[in-house]
């Protein structure tokens, strides 16, 4: 028996045949996540019903030395949930219970497969919601959010998943269940929870997550402002931040992104706009009213030629519809596209957009820009037609050049989609060998055998080695040389 066959037999026996998928056709449905051009059919898929079954699965893998990959809803955009051909894909889609809703403690405890938006829906009746709101929130899982440290349009004001996860029960790569953090803040000891969030499934599997619930704001006001070019929209953004206003969201789209959104969802943005900003303020009504006037004035002063203020929830939804559907929408104007995710210091926005324009023209590849303008998180959409000779390569060149720009301007190779399979190769451009080695020390503490989601995040496979023998506390050295 191969190690994988051993695991399969063991899990059939302990969990039951219905938890285990071996049918080739069915396995194929799990071959990729949202980054569909990377495909690997998993060796085995397991669908645990609870933490215990999850732990048994991982333990079986550990015993046989078989790699395992966690998967939530498979919406990841960096190939983080790309399966291993000789490994087990542990899918959390049967772990979807909201275990506890405790609005009095402003907490909810959920299983990892719970859909992001479902937490908000459950909490809304109590006047609360779950703040991190990735555009994929109708389908992505909390476990996936934890692994990616996902953000959303509103993280400018409210922070990312890391700021909203208070505790997690995890299965370590040995198959042990361990509690990190908890319902109360500041758990003593190392902040392993903080290190786990954003670790992309390489430190274990989250089996239960305690999240913070946030009070629904009393007032929300949304503004759509149209500008002649992205320069004016960028200047307006800078003015808002410089005035000390922290909107819940500031989102920008350029002409090409607007064109795509119009084609896809007819969002009816102002005609002739070279850029639009969606600015949303939320909070106490009196506070929002005062700041909204400020923001409107700053958009006008910086060249907005049309301002629309959402009069009701339906109008607000329409403003957001164009933005939230932007990724899929470019499918209407281009047969293929790459969704890039990079970060620059926000103040460098106009300059970097100009440089992206230059790269795009030089290679004859169109780039549509959608971004979280408030925090400098760019989502350039690189358009191409794979059927045309050489276009795929050119698009990849442009996409890579954009990442180089992010690094050149002191930003990051990823703001929210993660490193995964896709960006591991860029890690050495952002971090030194020593930086990566240090991150790897953490990985080795959790997973010395390297079985948890191998091949992700780190550019080259590394072995952990033994923990060096500890020196017994000897007598202090006679003379410390440099002192």
């Amino acid at each position, binding site marked *: 028996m191969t190690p994988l066959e051993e695991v399969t037999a063991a899990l059939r026996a302990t969990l039951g045949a219905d938890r285990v998928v071996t049918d080739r056709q069915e396995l194929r449905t799990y071959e990729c996540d949202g980054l569909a051009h990377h495909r690997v059919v998993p060796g085995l898929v397991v669908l645990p019903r609870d933490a215990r079954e999850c732990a048994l699965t991982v333990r079986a893998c550990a015993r046989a030395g078989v790699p395992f990959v966690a998967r939530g809803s498979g919406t990841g955009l960096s190939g983080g949930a790309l399966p291993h051909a000789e490994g087990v894909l542990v899918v959390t889609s049967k772990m979807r219970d909201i275990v506890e809703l405790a609005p*009095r*403690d*402003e907490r909810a405890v959920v299983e990892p497969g719970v859909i992001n938006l479902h937490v908000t829906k459950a909490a809304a009746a109590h006047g609360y919601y779950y703040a991190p709101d990735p555009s994929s929130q109708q389908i992505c899982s909390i476990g996936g959010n934890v692994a990616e440290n996902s953000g959303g349009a509103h*993280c400018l004001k409210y*922070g990312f998943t*890391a*700021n909203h996860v208070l505790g997690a029960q995890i299965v370590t790569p040995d198959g042990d269940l361990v509690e990190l953090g*908890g*319902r*109360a*803040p*500041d*758990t003593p*000891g*190392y*902040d392993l929870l903080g290190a786990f*969030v*954003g670790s992309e499934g390489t430190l274990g599997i989250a089996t239960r997550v305690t999240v913070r619930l946030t*009070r629904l704001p009393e007032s929300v006001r949304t503004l759509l402002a149209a500008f002649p070019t992205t320069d004016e929209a960028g200047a307006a953004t800078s003015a808002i*931040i*410089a005035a*000390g206003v922290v909107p819940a969201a500031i989102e920008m789209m350029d002409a090409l992104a607007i064109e795509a959104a119009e084609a896809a969802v007819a969002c009816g943005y102002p005609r002739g706009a070279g850029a639009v900003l969606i600015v949303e303020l939320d909070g*106490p*009504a*009196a*506070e929002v009213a*005062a*700041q909204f006037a400020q923001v409107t004035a700053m958009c006008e002063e910086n060249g907005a030629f049309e301002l629309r203020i959402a009069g009701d929830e339906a109008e607000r939804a329409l403003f957001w519809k164009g933005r939230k559907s932007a990724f899929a929408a470019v499918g209407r104007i281009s047969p293929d596209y790459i969704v890039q995710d990079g*970060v*620059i*210091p926000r103040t460098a926005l106009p300059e970097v957009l100009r440089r992206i324009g230059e790269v795009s023209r030089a290679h004859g590849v169109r780039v549509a820009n959608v971004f979280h303008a408030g925090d*400098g*998180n760019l989502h350039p959409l690189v358009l191409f037609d794979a059927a045309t000779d050489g276009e795929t390569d050119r698009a990849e060149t442009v996409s890579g050049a954009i990442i180089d720009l992010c690094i050149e301007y*002191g*930003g*990051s*190779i*990823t*703001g929210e*989609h993660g490193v995964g399979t896709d960006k591991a190769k860029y890690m050495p451009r*952002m*971090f030194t060998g*020593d*930086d990566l080695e*240090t*991150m790897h*020390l*953490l990985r*080795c*503490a*959790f997973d010395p055998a390297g079985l948890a989601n191998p091949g992700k*995040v780190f550019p080259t496979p590394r072995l952990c080695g033994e*923990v060096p*023998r*500890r*020196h017994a*506390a000897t007598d*202090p*050295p006679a003379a410390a040389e440099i*002192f």
Partner: protein
Amino acid sequence: MRRRTAGSDDHVAGVPARYVAAPASTGEAAEVLGAAAADELAVVIRGGGTKLEWGLPPRRLDLIVDTHRLTGVVEHAAGDLITVVRAGTALAALDFGPQRLALESPLPGATVGGALAANTSGPRRLLHGTARDLVIGMTVVRPDGTVTRSGGKVVKNVAGYDLGKLFTGAYGTLGLITECAFRLHPVAPAGAVVLREADGPEVGPLLAAIRAEQVVPSAVELDRPGPGPATIAVLLEGTAEGVRERAARLEKVLGGTTGDLPPWWGAYPWAPGGTGVKLTAALSRVPELLAAAPEVPVRGSAGAGVLYAAPTGDVPRTVELLRAAAVRAGGHAVVLTAPPEVRDAVDMWGPVPGLDLMRRVKDRFDPGHRFAPGRFVGGI
């Protein structure tokens, strides 16, 4: 770089050091720690020295690395709301004009590095979070002298492991923090404080009422100086119009009055040399912490589920009571600091989940167990 043999003041919780080094840059720090590694020296980092009496004494100590020359603001990018600061800089010395680093130290003289290593926090943690929520990048020299960086200078960034969170609250057991990047927050143009005196049974409903009201406080603090009523103080910040309206509303809901920041604001309730305990609980169960030892002075960020207690008298017995209450309430009781006789008689850290994983982390980062050995949880 300055280095010298230790003087009579160079001890950590009573354990004398043999040498002191004061590097002035990350490079110099790497040189010192590399040499210390070669000689297998036991090392404790010293910032402002305000928390050297915290935790347990080191099992052994050869070298104190002092950060007082590792100071200054490297960068303040106002338009990007970020700063990069050297770890030995005093928190109180930071001035970003219309912006602020929302990391407030209860102890005057504390450095950035020390506040991070001990994970201290102040009243504004309710709105802006704690160190872990503010740090966006960190440069650390590992115990073997390797310089390593994680995160970056942009607020949004998920490239690689977020090691800044691991070093925050690690009590200097994993390496020397030399430089940090933080996100900043704008200073609000206006503020108001709403005060309300409350008897024990009133505290829970009042805290719940503040949470239910749409006033988004920056801080909800509480002080109970001893037996008798407590004072709840709520800080509201924002635009002048907004703050006026919110304060009026809160006054009405609480039956409180608008006043000044009370003198106890943001300070620990214990005197130097006394026992200080940090208590945490699920938000709705904070009143149980107050009820557990009604005679003990208690103060802190009640709105965030964090209180500090200053037990006197039979301290070990009181710690037991407080710890039992905190654990029942979903939290922890950690004795942050205590005189030697109390330190010997109590379990300073209490139960810590995930200790085995923590030991494995320590083994990887500091295989010789030379950095602040024994100061941290589980003898780490």
